[in-house]
């Protein structure tokens, strides 16, 4: 019922369902699954009903309605909302209420969407399991002993649990695509600059993008349409035409399209055999739709993760400097006035020590180190050079093909607690996803089957800059030809 925004729009237009009814269903679905999965940091029940009422009134009055009218949308808690707390799942911002809306949130409101609440995430979007959240782990609706992935774990889980048809995530190194894969849904990371970052609390500014998550490609296209576009308040926003993303869906004819298969990623030992098989099967689906498969190389792909784990922490260490307890956010109550560095430094140290969790601290330390005098050339500046090589690899590959096909993750959803104490294992979850962030490319994660335990498997398509339409076109064809995106987890029982 709550798994298709397109269907909900149609039902409202036909007068079969009101926005208030949809919102009530969404809220009750959340209420019944939240104890099991903990997908939300904040549920704005009253405000959501209020918004839904306005939508129904507008419809009754025959006023024009936005493209997401009456559709419940969950927003990752990394996006600023002027009427709900914005915590980034951090103790540091536990009580932070921004005085403004992120651009994408403004756009949701303009589109008459019903913002249902804020979703749980890894603290400041740092993590691949939602286990670093200060407000408890989110569980995977397919198997509540497993993580939903991260950092947009709550955003993926609430869609998979049938709470909402649409949610907004953010993707710095795979944070939309990996949880989408773990939760069996579709998630798209747009081209860097396609969607405004204004009001997206920065983790790594040169990599962060906001993107849509939903069960199916048409719903992803619908939400992308609502949030994409140039915005002068974000200097890195691209001033480029936004095509109609829904226009070319509903086809299975991919003749003339060349899809590149990455020889490196399909050969890596880290890859789970079931996922390797799912990628091969997907290739066959594309071939059966008329696409041509070609093998391509990205010679520097082994440097993706190390490059990412220098650049992202460097930017994070700087972006997170503002959380010092002086102006807003967590401030320690035990300033050591006798500290040898003085009370001010003590206030900084203790506020940050108490406010940040272990993973955030680890990345701040790594980034601070890698930017320090004498080390910046060896790490940060070197990483920037490698990043240019990585971009060059993609440019080359896209002279030979139109899209790249590969896995999203090395394995399906892992168990809660399995990797949380092993940062390197956790970082390797990003093996196949960080390339698109480093190169600024759009990429989509699609349900591509399941493993022997019934856990969802994702496949990934990557496209050249600003070719979201091409991604959605091929992904739409794939979903027209397959039923993977129609699989649903067992309903959640309230006790777990």
């Amino acid at each position, binding site marked *: 019922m709550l798994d298709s925004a397109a269907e909900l729009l149609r039902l409202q237009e036909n007068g079969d369902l009101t926005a208030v009814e949809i919102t009530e269903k969404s809220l009750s679905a959340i209420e019944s699954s939240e104890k099991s999965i903990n997908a939300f940091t904040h549920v704005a029940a009253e405000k959501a009903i209020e918004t839904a009422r306005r939508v129904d009134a507008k419809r009754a009055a025959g006023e024009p309605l936005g493209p997401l009218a009456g559709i419940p949308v969950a927003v990752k808690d990394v*996006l*600023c909302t002027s009427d709900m707390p*914005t915590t*980034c799942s951090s103790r540091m*911002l536990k009580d*932070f209420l*921004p*005085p*403004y809306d*992120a651009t994408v949130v403004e756009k949701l409101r303009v589109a008459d969407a019903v913002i249902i609440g804020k979703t749980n995430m890894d603290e400041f979007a740092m993590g691949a399991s939602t286990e670093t959240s200060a407000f408890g782990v989110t569980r995977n609706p397919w198997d509540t002993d497993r993580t939903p992935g991260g950092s947009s774990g709550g955003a993926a889980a609430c869609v998979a649990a049938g709470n909402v048809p649409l949610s907004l995530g953010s993707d710095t190194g795979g944070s939309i695509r990996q949880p989408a894969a773990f939760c069996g849904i579709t998630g798209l990371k747009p081209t860097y600059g396609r969607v405004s*970052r*204004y*009001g*997206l*609390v*920065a983790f*790594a*500014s*040169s990599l962060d993008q906001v993107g849509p998550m939903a069960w199916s490609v048409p719903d992803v296209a619908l939400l992308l349409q609502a949030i994409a576009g140039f915005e*002068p*308040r*974000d*200097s*890195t926003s691209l001033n480029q035409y936004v095509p109609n993303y829904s226009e070319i869906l509903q086809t299975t004819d991919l003749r003339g399209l060349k899809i590149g298969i990455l020889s490196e990623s399909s050969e890596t030992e880290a890859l789970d055999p079931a996922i390797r098989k799912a990628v091969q099967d997907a290739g066959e689906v594309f071939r059966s739709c008329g696409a041509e498969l070609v093998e391509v190389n990205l010679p520097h792909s082994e440097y993706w993760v190390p490059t990412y784990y220098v650049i992202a922490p*460097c*930017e994070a*260490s*700087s972006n*997170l*400097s*503002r959380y*010092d307890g*002086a*102006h*807003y956010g967590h401030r320690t109550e035990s300033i050591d006035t006798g500290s040898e560095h003085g009370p*001010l*430094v003590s206030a*900084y140290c203790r506020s940050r020590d108490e406010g940040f969790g272990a993973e955030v601290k680890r990345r701040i330390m790594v980034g*601070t180190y890698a*930017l*320090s*005098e004498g080390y*910046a050339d060896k790490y*940060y500046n070197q990483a920037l050079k490698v990043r240019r090589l990585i971009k060059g690899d993609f440019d080359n590959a896209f002279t030979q093909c139109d899209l790249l096909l590969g896995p999203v993750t090395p394995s399906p959803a892992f168990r809660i607690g399995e990797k949380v104490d092993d940062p390197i294992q956790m970082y390797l979850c990003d093996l196949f996803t960080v390339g698109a962030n480093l190169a600024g490319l759009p990429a989509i994660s699609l349900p591509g089957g399941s493993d022997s335990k019934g856990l969802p498997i994702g496949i990934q398509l990557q496209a050249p800059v600003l070719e979201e339409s091409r991604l959605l076109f091929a992904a739409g064809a794939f979903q027209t030809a397959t039923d993977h995106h129609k699989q649903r987890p067992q309903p959640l029982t309230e006790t777990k």
Partner: protein
Amino acid sequence: MSKHEITTIIGLEVHVQLKTKTKLFCSCSAAFGAPPNTQVCPVCLGLPGALPVMNEEAIELAIRAGLAINCSIPPMTKWDRKQYFYPDLPKGYQISQFDLPICADGYLEITDPEDPDSIRHIGIIRAHLEEDAGKSMHDEQTGKSDTRIDLNRCGTPLLEIVSQPDLRSAAEVKEYLTQLKLILTHLDVSDCEMQEGSLRVDANVNLHIRFDGKKIATPIVEVKNMNSFRAVERALEYEIERQYADWEVDGLTIEDNPKTTRGWDDVKERTFVQREKEESADYRYFPDPDLLPIRIPAERVEELRQSLGELPRETFARLQSQHGLKPYDADVIVNQGPAMIAYYERVSELSGDAKRASSWIQQDVMRTLKDRDVSIDDFLVTSVQLGELLKRVSDGQLDNTRARDVFSYLLEKESTVEQAIAALGIEQVDSSEIDALCQALLDANPAVVDDVRGGKVQAVGSLIGQAKKKNPNANPQQVRETLLRLIGK
């Protein structure tokens, strides 16, 4: 002061606040003096999720300033983050420029204070743009050292101009700052008001002392907290003496203590130690990923160069070559700014007497401006009126005294020069009338006639005074000439 040969080495870091309407990265007003924390927004407060957007006007002002101080403007520049923690820096970093400043490698010409006829070139290493921090106000009166923070200033655009260590005395520093302020105010790039903080100076100073045939360098001291040009001059004079005196006692050199920071105490008139050992701070500069690099096409630089017009130093030269002014006089007029220069040139042209125009402006006009605390733009005697008045003096129609009467009249009442002359009852006196007046005086004063005939020409002076009393309109010059003619000298 010294038994040794000493060279003073001074380099300056000058921060000027650019006169943009809005801040460097947001649309908040950059005006001075608003109530605390009223000119702020999510961007300049550094709130989570807020992003900077560059102010084009600041780029333009920086390029204009850079061109005026003979800098080159590179085709590409960028923004970097300079990272440190302080409560008046809400983002935990300052957006600045590290390795690609918007202006580089220039110089400023100053008049050598030791020799007004020669010019010194002071090298400028770079000038870069950056956002200002807020203000911490430490309230020690409450007894618990309460600190309050005003973030209005956060994000206002600064241009930091770094000189080579080419300055050799406090007087040169004062001249450098005067010239810099002159240029930047002339271009309307900055107000350059030290009291309001729109111009701030940090000076690095040490001495090179010849000793035993070797050159010894004293530790470098960065002097801060100077809030007027006078304070800068006095602080440096003090610091130069102190460094020599200390070296004579302790013999410490730059190797013993590379750099300390001292503040200037304006009341006690001395510098005091602020930071003993300068720790080399690691600001972890890196390119700001929220902002794009700035491309500056050569054509745009050329356009801005053309728009600069005549710069103060060029006017200074032209006033000498074209108007025949002495360097001192040209300097005084140029230092008054563009409006005064225009005023002077008009008066000079209309009166046909460049030097008379200069001396009247420097004395009568500037004194009146100062007494009445008005600017030349609001001055009651227009350049046309003064030009006309001085033309009459040059033509011998008026003497200086009568001209001053007219000037005073014009200051009080709105009227033309002609009306003023009429109102004051000033008339041109007929030469036959002067002849008669002079003959009468000579007849009454035979002693004077004898004195003049005996060679004491100056003796006629007393008769000129008497003539003036009998007829205030008599032109003293004309009276003098008539007297001498009648004596037959």
